[in-house]
């Protein structure tokens, strides 16, 4: 039954969206929920069928697409992509389920289903071109969601989002073509298969150039400082569901791509750029946290907090050891859950008051205690409270990077301080104090539909914070294989040293308890 599960997973939502055109408007929500639920169930089946002990790709499917140019429809997953896929289907489900009253709900739901296809597609693709297809295609539904349902600046925001990321990915595309060209030079055949590219050992200077080319694509998507300015606009203007998906899944594409492309293909360049990227990450962490602190709009606080957290993820990725990379992959999921939930929570208030300004809020804790509780849990998760999902990722990321640099980690570690500052400040402004705004006095607490979305997120937040093993273990195994690949491929002695061989450590780790 698992033979074509990935293809089914990718194309089922799109197909369903096409069929959805004929569904009557009043029933579309049920249809959307049903489709998303099936998709989510499929992804759980995938998880069930995934063999955590196997190193390497699973459920691989291959189909020649443009064989003359070495492009194949090649999909497969490992522990790194598995959970982001589950996360994507999960968020689509709760996103559709919790959708408030919006105009043109049919368009919205169908767009979301298309978006789901592209999201899943990105994470299953093992061919660079297929990856690129989904990568770019994901911009389109998002553009529509921001542009059609967004705030007053929605058009500016959506165009900026689209063009900025588009520009970056085009540079990445050139890098991919170079990679294919080098592969052609080396082997005489064209190939865009990532797994084939892994086998290519490039000289360091080429690695550096290619790394830079890929970096533009990824960094803008992440977004890394100083390419982050599209994000506040996109989030600020997007409707709740748009922000949720954007933060939870789309941003992860960038960091995922670092793990999937940059690290295993350019180990030496990764070492070469480790410090600069770490510095950028630290700027992201501290600087954006400060900017978040200065925000007047709670959604912008969450938006900038995303950037800040993505800094930790990038840092963990460039720890170049199993601990750090596993942590960063885990943090991708964690941040997806937490920031997704936070955006949803902001949306809850926005639905009621149609404002996101902190100055409009205040004292909400007494009016909406459940809302405040859930918000508080997520704020604390975002601030990296142990036993919440975020902490595991942040801890491991920082722990991993500590191996590479003490001082940079200490700087990056300020994430837990600055993160607490802006989050708590915003939380205080919004929820504490007395109700000063009359309009807030009679707000309803979270309703059933919203709880349906939020409670699972809370549960996941705590569950994976307390017991991350079911997720962390497969991630860790896959990361181990990537790191050992990097270690083997590394040319320069520095890279050999910086990237430890996890296989060797495994031998000693046997007797750890």
């Amino acid at each position, binding site marked *: 039954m698992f033979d074509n599960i990935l293809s089914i997973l990718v194309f089922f939502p799109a197909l369903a969206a096409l069929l959805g055109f004929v569904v009557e408007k009043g029933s579309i929500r049920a249809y959307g929920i049903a489709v998303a639920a099936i998709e989510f169930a499929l992804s759980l089946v995938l998880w069930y069928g995934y063999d955590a002990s196997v190193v390497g790709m699973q459920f691989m499917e291959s189909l020649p697409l443009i064989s003359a140019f070495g492009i194949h429809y090649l999909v497969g997953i490992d522990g790194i992509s598995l959970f982001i896929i589950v996360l994507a289907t999960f968020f689509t489900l709760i996103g559709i389920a919790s959708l408030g009253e919006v105009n043109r709900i049919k368009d919205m739901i169908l767009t979301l289903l298309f978006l789901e296809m592209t999201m899943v597609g990105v994470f299953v693709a093992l061919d660079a071109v297929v990856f690129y297809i989904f990568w770019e295609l994901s911009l389109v539904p998002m553009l529509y969601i921001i542009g059609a349902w967004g705030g007053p600046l929605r058009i500016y925001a959506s165009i900026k989002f689209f063009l900025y990321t588009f520009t970056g990915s085009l540079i990445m595309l050139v890098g991919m073509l170079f990679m294919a060209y080098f592969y052609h030079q080396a082997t005489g055949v064209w190939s865009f298969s990532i797994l084939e590219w892994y086998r290519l050992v490039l000289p360091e200077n080429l690695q550096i150039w290619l790394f830079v080319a890929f970096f533009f694509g990824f960094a803008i998507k992440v977004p890394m400082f100083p390419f982050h300015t599209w994000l506040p606009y996109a989030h600020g203007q997007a409707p709740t569901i748009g922000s949720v998906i954007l933060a939870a899944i789309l941003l992860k594409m960038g960091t995922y791509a670092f793990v999937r492309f940059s690290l295993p293909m350019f180990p030496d360049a990764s070492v070469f750029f480790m410090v600069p990227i770490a510095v950028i990450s630290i700027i992201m962490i501290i600087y954006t946290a*400060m900017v978040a602190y200065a925000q007047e709009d709670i959604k912008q606080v969450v938006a900038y907090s995303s950037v800040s957290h993505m800094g930790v993820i990038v840092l963990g990725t460039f720890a170049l050891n199993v601990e750090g990379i596993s942590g960063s992959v885990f943090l991708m999921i964690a941040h997806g859950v937490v920031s997704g939930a936070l955006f949803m929570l902001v949306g809850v208030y926005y639905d009621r008051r149609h404002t996101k300004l902190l100055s409009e809020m205040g004292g909400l804790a007494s009016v909406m205690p*459940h809302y405040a509780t859930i918000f508080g849990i997520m704020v604390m998760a975002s601030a990296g409270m142990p036993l919440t999902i975020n*902490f595991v990722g942040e*801890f491991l990321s920082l722990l991993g990077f*500590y191996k590479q640099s003490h001082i940079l980690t200490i700087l990056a570690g300020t994430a837990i*301080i600055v993160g607490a500052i802006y989050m708590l400040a915003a939380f205080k402004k919004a929820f504490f*104090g007395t109700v000063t705004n009359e309009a807030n006095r009679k707000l309803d607490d979270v309703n059933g539909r919203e709880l349906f979305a939020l409670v699972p997120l809370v549960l996941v937040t705590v569950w994976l914070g307390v017991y991350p093993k079911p997720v962390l273990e497969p991630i860790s195994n896959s990361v181990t294989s990537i790191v050992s690949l990097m270690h083997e491929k590394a040319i320069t002695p520095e890279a050999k040293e910086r990237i430890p061989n996890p296989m060797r450590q495994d031998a000693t780790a046997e007797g750890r*308890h």
Partner: protein
Amino acid sequence: MELYLYLALFSPLAGSLIAALFGAQPKTLFTGLLTSSLLGLSLVSSTVLLVHILSGGSAVHVEMMTWMATGDLYIPFGFLVDQVSVTMMMVVTVVSTVVHVYSIGYMHHDKGFNRFFSWLSAFVFSMMVLVMSDNFAGLFIGWEGVGLCSWALIGFWYHKESASWAANEAFIMNRIADLGMLIGLFLIYWNVGSLQYDRFFEAVTLLDQSILVMIGIFLFIGAMGKSAQFPLHTWLADAMEGPTPVSALIHAATMVTAGVYLVVRANPLYEMIPDVGYFIASLGAFVAMFAASMALVNRDMKRIIAYSTLSQLGYMFVAAGLGAYWVALFHLMAHAFFKALLFLGAGNVMHSMSDELDPFKMGGLKKSMKWTWIMMTLASVALAGIWPLAGFFSKDLILEVAFVEHHYVLYTVLLLTAMLTAFYSFRLIALIFHGEERYKEYGSHPHEAYTFMLIAMSPLALLAVISGFVFKGSYFDMVTAVLPATEYHVHSPIVFWIMVIGTQLLVGLAIAFAYKKYQNAKIDKVFEERLCYKILRNQYYIPDFYEEYICKPYRELSYVAWKQLDLRIVDATVDGIASLLYKTGEQTHTMQNGNLSTMLRWMVAGTVLLLALGVAFTVGYSVVAG
């Protein structure tokens, strides 16, 4: 024994979660009773474990499940009940049970009754995790957990701006220290390969001295935050915004002592790095004095007690820093009892005075609040270190330690501090309970607290009286199984007696002075104009300094980062590139002016350009070729 361990650990959690279900609902007495009884269960289980340990049983060590495992890293949820942790467990469960019961009365009228108990029990759970964990990561979980609960409880009355501000301050300041702790953990992991205590302590002897120093420093930074050591001390006084039982439990008895516990726990490490230990001791002594001095003039009852807590924490660090870990732990225990008692008494006073905190607006309360008066006086006597109450045994022991270890400066400082302690404690007692009934001017109607609250306090009162006297011996026997069993005896009996009696005399003098001065206190305007008063009253201007030179610049810098840097530079660059292209288009698309002549001219111009380039190339070519 594992069952008891789990019971002791998880029954507070169960209580908390159940109470949380009712969190947003109006008061249900049930939650208070339930959490209290579950804590009672925890107390009983802890006692069983204590008995087990006391009766020479081996330490109980369980590994519940894996928490994080990746690469080389393996962190389980492991719990360890040994002599040290069981002491802490007892302290925690006893005080918290008392506080829970007490709170049923204290929070009687509060809207957030259920929420309060939920958080309070959650705190106990976190604290239990903190003390029971068998590894640093678990400790860190508890560490952050108590921080979280402390945040929630300080800011319990969230509608008060000052309360939520204080909560955030406490949280963030603790976070600063936690970063240090986290770095300490990283250091341990990358040098030892594990975060388990036993593995680490085994490896301590093999590690480089410089690394040990680093680890020691970073862990202590963590301890400084929780235990509010200078310069991270300001949050503790502000934390008094929380309900008084919270202050009793968290900010006196348990959480703030976590730092001391950490140092005690990590004693094999600090044994190896006496220099760091000496630094800790010095800082402790400084804080003891420093905090006591601020308590002298304060006019907020709870803050005075908070400063006294701070001061006593300083004492504990002196002991811990000098290697007298068991002494530190002993003082920790004793202090927990009498300080919690003191706070609860203060709570009674506040209750009856409608949350008035200024002792200058009280006076003569001993008539209406007899039992409270008795218990607070007992606690103050214990705090002042008068024989035979608990404080005498624990605190004077620290003085002895300093003396025996030949740290005479520390000794002197501590001795002076002991006097100050006695002074401010009885200043408070005198102001509240003695003298004329000033409260009448403010229209208060004092009344004694509920009887069950007083009964709830009574175990603490008892312990404050007897814990030093009765427990010292058996305690020593027990903890020295895991802690260095150094006995601190002043060898010359004459010196010993001079010291003991001298100290008692000095303290007695201080008490007498306090009574004399404040029994019929008027606010001394002249005194308040003095510089030294102002400095002390304003806490050495440290909060102002933080506000002015850290918070404000951070705020302003954030604003600049957003408005100037992010919007004006980073974003403007992006938009600038886009608008440059667009403007170029706008400027140049007029070359398409629709006039055919212009179009033809462009064509000719293009051709001419090509020709010119051709000629130029030819010339260049012939130059190169020729």
